């Protein structure tokens, strides 16, 4: 007897899995479009930071608001991208507790699809965050001194950094019970990390131990690389250091996040 009906495939092919990831990324982007207020933390907040720091501390730190802005804006881009990278963790944590996640799990789609979808949808958040900050800074007097190619590289570096750092938030998101805790834990981690760097003040005014850390901090290295790419200066050294950090974060947190994710969604 020959089988009249072809048996459904037993496994999901990688190509199919990628497609599922893209479909769920589309869902994430739709949700951003419907609730633009979820972009507040990566738009309004950095604008406030920019205005506040430039006009309040600019004169004291750099002698003039204009000089400070040239230094601060690239650094804020880094802080902002790292802030934006926590949203995949929040989104997944929110999702897994909802009925719609059971529907996804009961469908013949890749287990990783919701994860891939959340991470890919975040690229849109990174790009919006970068654009809003760059435009505001430009209105305030920030000037790019390099070529469009360097700017594109800077944007790419920021997006890739976001995609690397997001695994920390995904890991935390799969461990704790509610979205508020993900946010709380991640901000308690991101604030010291980004302030303990050369984003807001030059490292050489800090006490020795903090100066030492700030010099090797991934945030400082990334900020230096972005400064180099936007206003000129050394790019290669800081960029290599930053890439090493990003690789390290991915090596440690990607497997941790995947394990926690599998454990959480079964």
């Amino acid at each position, binding site marked *: 007897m020959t089988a009249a009906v072809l*048996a*459904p*495939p*037993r*496994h*999901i092919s990688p190509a*199919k899995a990628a*497609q*599922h990831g893209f*479909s*769920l990324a*589309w*869902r994430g982007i*739709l*949700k951003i479009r*419907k*609730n633009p207020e979820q972009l507040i933390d990566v738009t309004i907040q950095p604008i406030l930071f920019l205005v506040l720091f430039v006009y309040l501390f600019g004169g004291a730190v750099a002698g003039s608001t204009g000089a400070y802005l040239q230094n601060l804006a690239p650094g804020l881009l880094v802080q902002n991208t790292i802030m934006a990278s926590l949203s995949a963790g929040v989104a997944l944590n929110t999702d897994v507790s*909802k*009925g*719609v996640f*059971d*529907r*996804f*799990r*009961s*469908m*013949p*789609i890749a287990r990783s*699809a919701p994860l891939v979808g959340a991470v890919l949808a975040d690229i849109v958040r990174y790009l919006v965050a970068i654009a809003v900050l760059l435009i505001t800074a430009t209105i305030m007097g920030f000037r790019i001194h390099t070529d469009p190619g360097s700017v594109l590289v800077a944007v790419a570096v920021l997006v890739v950094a976001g995609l690397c750092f997001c695994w920390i938030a995904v890991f935390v998101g799969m461990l704790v019970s509610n979205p508020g805790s993900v946010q709380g834990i991640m901000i308690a981690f991101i604030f010291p990390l980004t302030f303990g760097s050369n984003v807001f003040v030059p490292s050489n005014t800090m006490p020795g131990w903090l100066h030492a850390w700030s010099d090797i901090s991934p945030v400082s290295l990334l900020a230096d690389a972005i400064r180099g790419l936007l206003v000129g200066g050394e790019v290669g050294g800081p960029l290599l250091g930053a890439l090493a950090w990003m690789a390290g974060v991915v090596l440690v947190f990607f497997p941790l996040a995947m394990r926690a994710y599998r454990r959480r969604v*079964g």
Partner: protein
Amino acid sequence: MSLAIQAEGLVKRFGETVALNGVDLRVPTGKVVGVLGPNGAGKTTAVRILATLLQPDSGHATVGGYDVVRDPVRVRSLIGLTGQYASVDEDLSGNENLVLIGRLLGLSRPAAKARAAGLLEQFELTEAAGRAAKTYSGGMRRRLDLAASLVGHPQVLYLDEPTTGLDPHARNEVWAVIRRLVADGATVLLTTQYLDEADQLADSITVIDHGRVVAEGRADELKRRVGGQTMLVRPTALSDMDIVERILADLTGVNPVRDNDTGLLTAPVSDPVLLSTMVRKLDDAGITADELALRLPSLDEVFLALTGKPAEEVAV
């Protein structure tokens, strides 16, 4: 008779709690089997195992011939899941939800859109298609859930408490939809805590309680199994209820169901002759009754007899 779902000896524990304690289930292709039981009886756990969302601690189950543990991807391509847990994305519109599911199931963009439009029409949601699902009424939400589980033309449909929490009007809407699906030949596993729902929709009923199957059969078989008939007594004076309750208990050997509002006492009886005995005993006690009769038991009484709990206590 081919079986769409076959489960044997399913056991599932959550810590100390035994959710399923050896459940067997058989759903013939093209039939509707109702799984009836109180809250916490293990209905949803059983559905989640059969939908590959949970793994059983022991026992095994096949859907369409595929093992739910060894071949989950194949099982998932055969089933549609709907009910209190499997749901839709509240932020997306009805249309976007259905298109997303179509895309995930491998339909091209135009095909996914066409399928979504067809289902929205079928479930009378075309007007609300562009609105976010969170703005839908309870009945519309369930209809959208149902539509979502049908996008992939599933061979087997799980309806997990499809009308729990709905008002009677919305419940009727959902029932009408389910009847249409059944008429089209769908195989359905329906869980419910409402007896009339199982009675109305299911070809056969499996009653589970405390993670065990306590009875199965067609509704009328179940009714017959519980001692054939029910004796009803309504004493003229409500103050006589205690005495009548005792007499009825002595006579039938079962604690009667007592309704203090209507003054009605009911108990299953195996022998119709007991009716005349009852008349005599009431006479001896000098009690008059407004109503004294035998009838086939209601499913509520079946439920009480099988689970030891009245259904009303259960369906809160």
